[in-house]
């Protein structure tokens, strides 16, 4: 047996990498199959859409706009599913990958072989990190394939949170954060099920907190109009805040004139128009990069903490 395997080993993972990959080969295979299935569905829809003439009602199975509607619905589902991906990753790393070893005692087997336990822990972080990298970059690319024709759909505006995440590196950043949060939680909690919940919760909290901050991570553009009763926005622009504008240029909140006789109120406060702060389309990339940078820095800090704790507690 051993002679047979040694000849193939050169291209295959060795040592702890082999062990970790072999232990978790089912979930790795499942992730690969799901990614391929997503790629097939996504590109199939896009090819069918592109192949259907704009005004075709006779030859094709569906009309061009029916395909677009289908693409929008699938993209909407896709984006929501991707939103859950970091929570899933954190739970898998925390529970089955780390806490179960500590709970069931199998760590005693691995840590007393010839390999430094810290290298084992590094493999437990690095392998899911690589897998998450491949899957999220794949998903981001595939989402772009769907999003192209359906970007005008109200559910798929770039600033919808779930769409924003899957449009760029933020999804990758949150995936990597989830890996490190999962590893740290598994190390601290040491019980499979509790660690899975705690890691999911911690990652969800981090994502929610960053969501609350996200629109402030790049300075918004400002605009005004002479009509206090309407905001003149182009579809795709993301209004962050709006209010009433006085003749002196002072910005008042809308709440000042939440009264029945609002016209009289406008006169009283000298309101002559409306102001609004917004993110135009062009802010997608600055917002993506700043948020990804912050999340990656957070992931690095969590990984550092996990390794420090591992070193101080165990060998």
């Amino acid at each position, binding site marked *: *047996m*051993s002679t047979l*395997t040694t000849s193939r080993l050169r291209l295959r993972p*060795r*040592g*702890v990498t*082999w*062990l970790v990959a*072999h*232990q978790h080969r089912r979930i790795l295979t499942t992730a690969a199959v799901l990614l391929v299935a997503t790629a097939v569905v996504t590109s199939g829809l896009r090819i069918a859409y592109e192949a259907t003439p704009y005004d075709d009602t006779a030859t094709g199975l569906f009309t061009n706009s029916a395909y677009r509607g289908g693409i929008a619905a699938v993209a909407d589902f896709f984006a929501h599913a991707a939103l859950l991906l970091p929570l899933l990753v954190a739970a898998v790393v925390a529970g089955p990958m780390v806490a179960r070893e500590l709970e*069931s*005692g*199998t*760590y*005693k*087997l*691995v*840590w*007393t*072989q*010839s*390999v*430094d*336990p*810290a290298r084992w822990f590094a493999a437990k972080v690095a392998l899911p990190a690589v897998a998450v990298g491949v899957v999220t970059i794949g998903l981001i690319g595939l989402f772009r394939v769907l999003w192209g024709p359906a970007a005008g759909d109200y559910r798929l505006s770039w600033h919808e949170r779930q769409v924003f995440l899957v449009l760029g590196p933020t999804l990758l950043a949150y995936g990597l954060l989830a890996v490190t949060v999962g590893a740290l939680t598994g190390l601290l909690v040491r019980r499979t099920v509790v660690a899975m919940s705690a890691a999911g919760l911690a990652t969800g909290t981090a994502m929610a907190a960053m969501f609350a901050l996200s629109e402030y991570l790049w300075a918004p553009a400002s605009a005004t109009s002479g009509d206090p009763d309407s905001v003149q926005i182009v579809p795709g622009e993301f209004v962050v805040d709006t209010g009433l504008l006085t003749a002196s240029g002072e910005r008042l909140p809308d709440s000042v004139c939440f009264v029945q006789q609002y016209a009289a109120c406008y006169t009283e406060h000298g309101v002559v128009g409306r102001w609004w702060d917004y993110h135009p389309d062009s802010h997608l990339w600055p917002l993506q990069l700043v948020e990804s940078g912050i999340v990656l820095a957070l992931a690095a800090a969590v990984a550092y903490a996990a390794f420090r704790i591992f*070193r101080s507690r*165990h*060998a």
Partner: protein
Amino acid sequence: MTATAIEANGLGLGYGRRGHRALDGCSFRVPAGRVCALAGPNGAGKSSLLALAAGLLRPTGGTLRVLDGIPSDARGSTSRAEGLRGRIAYVAQDKPLYPQLTIGETLRLGHELNRGRWDAALAERIVEEGGGLDPAARIRSLSGGQRTRVALALALAKRPELMLLDEPMADLDPLARHRLTAALMTEAADHGTTIVISSHILSELEATCDYVLLLDGGRVRLAGETEDLISAHTLLTGPVADLPDHTVVESRTTGRQLTALVRGSSAVGGGWQTAQPSLEELLMAHLRSPDAPPMLTPSAEVATA
């Protein structure tokens, strides 16, 4: 002085905030090349001592040196610590193995994590001998005894200089126990491997072990060569009377008959029948008498700096 396999100096291990101490001020030495019985009742600290020596726990007091390295210290000298891990094999009491792996995959694990040391032929021989285990069988489908066989195969095929075995034979039938013990002893004799084997079945130890370490309540009670410890004690039987001038480990009266285990081998007069105690009698007498002073033979003494 011969090479040292394990040397503890004031070794202590506390658990939890209340400071329950699994080991308390243990100082002893186990020379290399010995088959050492680690005896003691449940809760004596046997498992803690083995886990410390394997580098899974870190002492809270004192020092522990194993094969001239510090097992729990991997920082600073990673390569040396890795080297040390490779030279020590440890089989935990619960024989942790991955239940979802097959026997073949488990041996592959041994190969992957012990590159350069792994003896695949030996591992396969131990797994196949006697039971004829199927390499494709999953660990979770094995009986306790079969799991023990796989765990010992992993430990032996690593070709360690020191084997730390925590209650290894507890769930084996007598035949399998005999076979695996023989395999262990052959290995020890052929390669000069030091074996530290814990058990609370005292009779099991006498035949195989030439060195004894008796722990009780986290402290060392006896340590040294089995023969020397036995010959340093005498079992006295006679009518109830004042015992001669010896350190008495234990004395018991049955009717008008008195049986005592005393330190010292010199002949005593006064109508006493003298006999050499068995290892089991020696250990039991010490466990029944917690106040008897500890005894370490010269090779088990730590040279205090």
